[in-house]
């Protein structure tokens, strides 16, 4: 058992989840089962392997350029209304569960 009830509580806290008692028990079981399977990655010696966060720098780029220069095509001017107009306040608030027409409204932030 790698993951304990305590670990699940800690991780749920990091992820801003509460989870019911039943969900926590299920989570301990599922995470252990998945992590047991994932354990097989340790069969591979990766001490001399570079990590790969994404594929974009391996293909479709100008190989003669280095580093961020390779992605020069993706940069743009830093202007207020560049590629599209900003959303109006009305549109930006339209999906809010609670808004007063000017601001998003949330419960009390300071807990005492």
């Amino acid at each position, binding site marked *: 058992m790698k993951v304990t009830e305590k*670990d*699940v509580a*800690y*991780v*749920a806290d*990091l*992820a*801003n*989840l*509460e*989870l*019911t008692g039943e*969900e926590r028990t*299920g*989570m301990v079981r*599922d*995470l252990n089962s*998945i*992590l047991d*399977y*994932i*354990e*097989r*990655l*340790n*069969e*591979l010696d*990766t001490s001399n*392997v*570079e*990590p*790969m*966060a*994404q*594929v*974009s720098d*391996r*293909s*479709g*780029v100008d190989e003669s350029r280095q580093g961020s220069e390779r*992605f020069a*095509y*993706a940069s*743009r001017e830093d202007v207020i209304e560049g*590629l*599209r107009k900003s*959303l109006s306040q009305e*549109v*930006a608030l*339209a*999906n*809010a*569960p*609670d808004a007063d027409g000017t601001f*998003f409204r*949330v*419960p*009390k*932030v300071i*807990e005492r």
Partner: protein
Amino acid sequence: MQLAQLTIDVARSAVQERKTTALALAEAHYACIQKEDGQIGAYLTLCKERVLEQADRIDRMAAEGKPLPPMGGVPVGIKDVMSTRGVRTTAGSKILGSYIPPYDSTAVARIEAAGAVVLGKTNCDEFAMGSSNENSAFRPVRNPRDLSRVPGGSSGGSAAAVAADMAVVALGSDTGGSIRQPASFCGVVGLMPTYGRVSRYGLIAFASSLDHIGPLAKTVKDAAIVLRTIAGRDPMDSTSADVPVPDYVTELDKPVRGLRLGVAKEYFGEGLDAEVRHAVESAIDKLKSLGCEIVPVSLPHTPYAIPAYYLIATAEASSNLARYDGVRYSYRAAGVKTLSEMYRRSRDEGFGAEVKRRIMLGTYALSAGYYDAYYLKAQKVRTLLTGDFEEAFRKVDAIVTPTSPTAAFRLGEKSNDPLAMYLADIYTVTADLAGIPGISIPCGQTKEKLPIGLQILGKHFDEATILRVANAYEQTA
């Protein structure tokens, strides 16, 4: 007009030549949805107003004798992870149950600019996380070929809509196999383009380094037309590649004779169903008879793809899904007293079981003390897996494999065993990790009449070759 025979060219020509109208085509599809979708569940939202507006635009063009754009009047479905302005977009989740985006995703904007008529938003696993469509917060999708079976996932609604003639083509998204596996299960064509080929702007993010948008279609040619329409650099997505887009449709007719096709034993091992193996081997023989050279290749790190994938995808998801906080949009739990209680309860009530499981796994893999052992390790294995393909593609032009180890399984069969469900993606996650394109095309069926899929994987930005091979095979079928 028979809906079942409608391809993009047939539909567009019929509208162009005034044999029918874009509106009549859309209405015929809505009639089919009305009749069939109660039991299938492919659509979550229909957008009739948007249909009327677009069909009217196309029908006016046809009436004035103007040439229609390449998808003029063609009814399409859009997976509900792509934002559509003014049309509810849920990602199959309760947390976005009433979300109405203020803008269109680039893929939707481009397909509409090409004349397509968006019928509605198709059902999917919640946040595209699943291989069976049973994780939709609204309802599962059933496989039109056999209603006791799943359509695959996560683009199950898009695959089922195309298979059941409720759309001519549909857009899906693929993070670990979510276009190709449902295409295989439903007996349609599903294409995942190279990472960066199609803009992700407006796609609700699951795992940003793995998410791809692509078409589900009845024919390879239709998939090529859709890809030509949606591909290409988009300044709104900095990861969209600055690589010229060839005319995939004219490329289809180039001969396949002399192409070298790799076959990797790692894709034909334990767990592969005997009937699927037989169908795929027969398809490979057929490709050989068309003049392709079959070359054994080795992709030795394949067995490590699923574990690497489920660390990387969940880590990225845990970060991407942190935005659902119940403040700016998304569900907020009722009666909460403090901010932290609001976050927790909204997320607890808004997310389904699989999404929470993946957020937990991803958060764990990124947490202090575990980052190196899990996340970093998986990224290194991703390098090895990608290297396997780079090595193999020095010798071959494409690689042929089964799309899925089995045909469609039954609803409920794997839903209580997350690991068994993850293994349904065993032949598809590799291409997502390496960022290479892959297509699934029908290659026969099992004794129970369930479709089987053949997967063809290609080099980065070489969709043209896999479409060409797929088209040549389709012509023989």
